[in-house]
């Protein structure tokens, strides 16, 4: 981020924290967690111990961090180096990000941002159409479809956690990540002590990875319809049945076909089904038992939106409910080739235009690298 823009962004963040201490609080067992933060253009500062909300708020006011993190793990000595922390367990966490969902809308709002001439052009390119440079980054901006699809994944996840893994809805906290997805945290003592390797297997379960046709009743030879899953069965067998047959009336015919097609065809079919019924979470996040994860209530410097809890996913609109920075006008020069929608107002597209917009919109575009202060 350019030096001249940092002032505006930090100001907006400071004002947000000052007015919204109620939204930013330490998670359960705060004294056992490791905290960390980043300042704009700065490196990660971690291994910090914070004992309560008061200390957290003091840090926010003093440092004005652009991003704040807190460990999912609990330690005896959270501020010691990693090898001496003494791991005591960790919440189960999941990250659902729209960029991992292979959505077709991504092409409509991906912006090519040249690393040399800093031009912003809509769509995906392998080199800058203007200066030919191959140094670039791809920026993605607010899209309702991305959010809707991420919500679907989050809902599927919450359902599997409940039905299959015995994690009740009250033990599951769903948050908007502050950018393009959702974070899910589970507070359930049964899973606290589960190690990294075990979490990798758990995440494969959730993503429906590593399935064997035998699990769903098809062996290499001698197959019968009777071993195939049935609609209404619990767990993945039931979900696979619904996906294979659609309805009970169609089941007998489809089952007969599956048995006659054999093992390899069924394997291909299961792989196809996986694309739709497997839940697309980022496996690295769940496997990591030492991660520092974005703190709820804090601002995400990729967008200026906040990580906020979603009580009701259906009604949740991140571009309204998580857009919490100030309303005063700021003058910026925007080069934003896509229209964005924040707090039910439309902004852009702008082609290197000098505009006066509310601070939240100015910060959003600056954070995305699509605007700069006048």
């Amino acid at each position: 981020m350019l030096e001249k823009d940092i002032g505006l962004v930090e100001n907006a963040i400071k004002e947000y924290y000052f007015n919204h201490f109620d939204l930013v609080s330490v998670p359960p067992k705060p004294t056992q967690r490791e905290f960390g933060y980043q300042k704009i253009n700065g490196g990660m500062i971690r291994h910090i111990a914070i004992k309560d909300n008061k200390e957290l708020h003091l840090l926010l006011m003093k440092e004005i961090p652009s991003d704040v993190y807190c460990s999912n793990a609990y330690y005896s000595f959270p501020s010691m180096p990693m090898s001496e922390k003494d791991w005591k367990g960790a919440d189960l966490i999941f990250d659902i990000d729209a960029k991992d969902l292979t959505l077709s809308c991504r092409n409509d709002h991906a912006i090519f941002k040249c690393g040399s001439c800093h031009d912003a052009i809509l769509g995906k390119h392998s080199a800058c159409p203007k200066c030919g440079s191959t140094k670039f980054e791809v920026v993605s901006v607010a899209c309702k479809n991305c959010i809707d699809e991420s919500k679907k994944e989050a809902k599927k996840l919450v359902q599997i956690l409940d039905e299959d893994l015995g994690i009740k809805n009250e033990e599951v906290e769903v948050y908007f990540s502050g950018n393009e997805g959702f974070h899910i945290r589970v507070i359930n003592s049964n899973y606290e002590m589960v190690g990294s390797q075990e979490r990798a297997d758990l995440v494969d379960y959730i993503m429906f990875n590593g399935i064997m046709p035998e699990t769903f009743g098809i062996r290499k030879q001698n197959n019968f319809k009777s071993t195939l899953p049935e609609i209404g069965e619990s767990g993945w067998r039931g979900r696979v049945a619904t996906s294979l047959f659609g309805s009970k009336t169609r089941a007998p015919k489809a089952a007969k076909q599956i048995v006659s097609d054999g093992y390899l065809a069924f394997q291909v079919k299961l792989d196809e089904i996986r694309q739709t019924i497997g839940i697309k979470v980022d496996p690295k996040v769940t496997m990591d038992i030492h991660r520092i994860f974005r703190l709820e209530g804090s601002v995400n410097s990729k967008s200026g939106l906040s990580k906020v809890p979603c009580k009701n996913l259906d009604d949740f609109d991140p571009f309204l409910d998580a857009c919490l920075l100030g309303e005063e006008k700021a003058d910026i020069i925007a080069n934003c080739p896509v229209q964005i929608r924040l707090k039910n107002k439309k902004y852009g597209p702008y082609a290197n235009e000098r505009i006066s917009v509310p601070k939240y919109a100015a910060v959003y575009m600056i954070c995305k690298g699509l605007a700069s202060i006048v």
Partner: protein
Amino acid sequence: MLHPGIMDLAKYPFLAEAGEYLRDKGFNLEQLAHPDWAPLVEKAYGRIVVATSGQIYGSDKGPIENPDIEILSFIVAVILLKAAGINTLTRRFSLAEARRAERYLQQDLWSNKDKKNLELPLKIIQELFRVQVTVENEEFVIKVSDYLQRAVHFHEKEWKLVNRRVTGGLVYLTAHETVRLIRTELGQYINSKIQSIALPSIPETFKSRVQDLVQLATKFSDAIVVSSDHPPCVKHAIEVLEKGENLPHSGRFLLATYLLARGQTTDQIAPLFKNAPDYNERVTRYQLEHISGSSGKGTKYQCPSCDKLRSENLCFAIPDCSGIINPIQFGKKRKN
């Protein structure tokens, strides 16, 4: 308390109650030193030999005929092993005894699944390994977290949680699978029991068999052949970098830790990353030194397991990969 009967002790002689039983019956070491007990020492020695050859003692026989002898021969075998003091033998014996007990546990679980008798096998599992097992419609049920902790050590796909029936936080297993799940722990439990025993001086009549055990152990010194070929995951990582394409962080980590484990230096490894789209010599060197443990906290990072690589979509297994659980094992074959 478990309150096992004498037949139970014959099946599970590693239980603490077995020692108590023998004490109560008045057996002691001096008594066993008498030449009259020579056949027992032979039986105990045989029990070890069978175990070290990878077989299960008593598996070809029918029901247990003399429970006292079963218990005693186990105890004498432990004394012989303890006197020989060779860990390889003790480990092999512990695992074989675990597999023997596993057979009985499985039988006991299965044949008594609707009777009150089921208590003992379930209690053994619960008290020794803190796994709560319940029975539901002829299936054995354990918590997902208890299952994962144990099943991740198995590398067959059928043990992956996704290939299990999972409902309400519980995993449903057969009797066989339930005991298979705790085999390693059972082996470790027996091994640790043997390690923790304090041995007084052993009777003369035991000594020649102890010598034989020392001799037997020389057979098990490892002979390993190493091939110089890299596993497919590492080859893939090198290819991606050679093409100048982006290799994710986890792939770079695999490559670095693998090559370091194979004895290459950071100077030899660094040039491999030259073609990466975001190559920065200083950063690469810093990261390689960090991974190798020569900078930072001095932690030397290990090559990620095949399991982890599979989860990260970095595994491209070929038939030669069968039986390995970490890329660094690729191409290493035992001679015997």
